[in-house]
């Protein structure tokens, strides 16, 4: 009697559970699972929207890795950008968060100001930064010249165009700072007090208390910034569109060109699949490595 009642409850829960997540089940199948598999399939075809798609085996991949210099360039550009942006945004975010985590007045105002750039629409942000980093009249170069410092030609110089993107992106990475700040407020005060009694200075406290306790937040940030920086598109499209000398031809931008300007959808699918493998591998190894450096000694709350 009791058993059947429990069984009934279980059945009801199962039914209700499925019912509540049913939009997601349909959506996942239609908008993720099917496209995910289809991209893999298309990557072995020569799909061009109008004509019929033809199975061509690994020809797309062969062309990408052996013949297509632009593919290699875009891969290099994207890795370059990610390798610069991910650590720098973390360091800058951390510095701001540490400064804001003191007893200063107007903390929430400052927090809002530092966060503000991250909500500016990318298209507007792109135009603004092309103007700010204008090599002759941009305010950054005007300032550098006033300080008698060398003024790079930013988006006119293949060596400085990617750093230009990195500076803009750091300006707009307020999310990183917010997450770190939230992590900082979770660090119990007593730990610092005890450390102070032991004669620890501020640097000791940061290295031995703050950073270890922030590692879960840092892992989260590294993963989202990794995924984000491999997909930089909108600003690249409106700001430089790959120029100068393809130095800002980022991966997603090239993928877009291949797919929606030349309509080589099979080729674009192969590129998409390669990006997925790269991002997945990097995120996975980051996650795997976290066992060694992320401190889970104390859960929040």
């Amino acid at each position: 009697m009791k058993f059947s009642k429990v069984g009934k409850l279980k059945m009801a829960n199962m039914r209700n559970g499925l019912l509540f997540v049913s939009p997601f089940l349909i959506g996942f199948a239609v908008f993720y699972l099917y496209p995910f598999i289809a991209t893999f399939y298309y990557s072995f075809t020569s799909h061009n929207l109008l004509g019929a798609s033809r199975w061509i085996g690994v020809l797309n991949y062969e062309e990408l890795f052996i013949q297509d210099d632009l593919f290699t360039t875009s891969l290099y550009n994207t890795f370059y950008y990610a390798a610069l942006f991910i650590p720098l945004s973390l360091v800058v975010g951390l510095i701001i968060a540490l400064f804001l985590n003191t007893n200063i007045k107007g903390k929430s105002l400052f927090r809002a100001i530092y966060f503000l750039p991250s909500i500016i629409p990318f298209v507007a942000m792109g135009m603004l930064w092309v103007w700010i980093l204008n090599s002759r009249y941009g305010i950054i170069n005007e300032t550098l010249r006033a300080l008698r410092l060398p003024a790079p030609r930013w988006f006119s110089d293949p060596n400085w165009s990617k750093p230009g993107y990195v500076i803009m992106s750091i300006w707009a990475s307020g999310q990183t700072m917010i997450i770190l700040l939230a992590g900082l407020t979770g660090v119990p005060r007593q730990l610092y007090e005890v450390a102070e009694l032991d004669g620890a200075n501020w640097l000791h406290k940061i290295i031995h208390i703050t950073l270890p306790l922030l590692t879960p937040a840092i892992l989260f940030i590294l993963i989202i910034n990794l995924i984000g920086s491999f997909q930089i598109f909108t600003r690249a499209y409106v700001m430089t569109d790959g120029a100068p000398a393809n130095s800002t031809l980022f991966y997603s931008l090239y993928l877009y060109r291949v797919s929606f300007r030349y309509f080589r959808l099979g080729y674009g699918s192969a590129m998409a699949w390669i990006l997925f493998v790269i991002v997945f591998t990097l995120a996975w190894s980051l996650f795997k490595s976290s066992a060694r450096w992320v401190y889970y000694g104390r859960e929040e709350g």
Partner: protein
Amino acid sequence: MRSKKISHMIQYGIVYLVVIFGAITFLIPLVWMFVTSLKIPAQIYVYPPEWIPNPVKWGNYLQVLTFFPFFRYLLNTLYITSLNVVGVLVSCSLVAYGITHIRWPGRNIIFILVISVLIMPYVVTLIPLYLMYHRLGWIGSYKPLWVSSFFGVWAFHTFLLRQFFLAIPQELSNAAKIDGCSEFRIYWNIVLPLSKPALFAVALFEFLWTWNDFLMPLVYLTNQKMYTLSLGLAFFQGTHDTAVNLLMGASSLVTIPVLILFFFAQRSFIEGITLTGLKG
């Protein structure tokens, strides 16, 4: 004792200086956008840069509006944005409820699927979805820009709501269940009203993303009259490349609504991000 107090004050002084200097640096680009948008061309290319437009040329905005159909793009953007906001509020909250407040075997699998969607690069699904919408005859319509939001696939929102729902005591819904309340009534009458801050954050983020989105309108919209603000702005740049003041004016017009929203709801933005950053 006194020297300690003084060194303490110096420390605070340094902190304030750094924080204020940094805040000004972060604000300058935006200020520069507005300043440039109000200048006459002769005042733009001068050294040293001038911070106060003289004369203040509001007329620039009138000129922008003749080339840049701001109000049409605004309506288009609001249309897409509101559909998306409604879509994610309804669908993501249902899914989040289903994996937090109902005990059933599949809920962890669903959560893993949500996470996998969260880290999936959008380019992986882009081409097949384009072909799918092409076959449906949806290219050039707004449908590709909002339909998916009704299927709970914007995992960030589901994740955010899950974090919030987990903090609502299960005992509440269990008690209601004993009183004969249906799952849907618990969801609708208990959990949703308690989750207003989280729902508000979801609405804000979705609004912001749709407002700022560029790739989807670029790929799917073909008729210039249907452009969104972001797409229209990029198009405007393509046609009026040289006039920096007008370009900054148009950029300001696209940015100002977002700034107004942020001004009134900054706490929700920040709390929403905090909620997703915490381990769960």
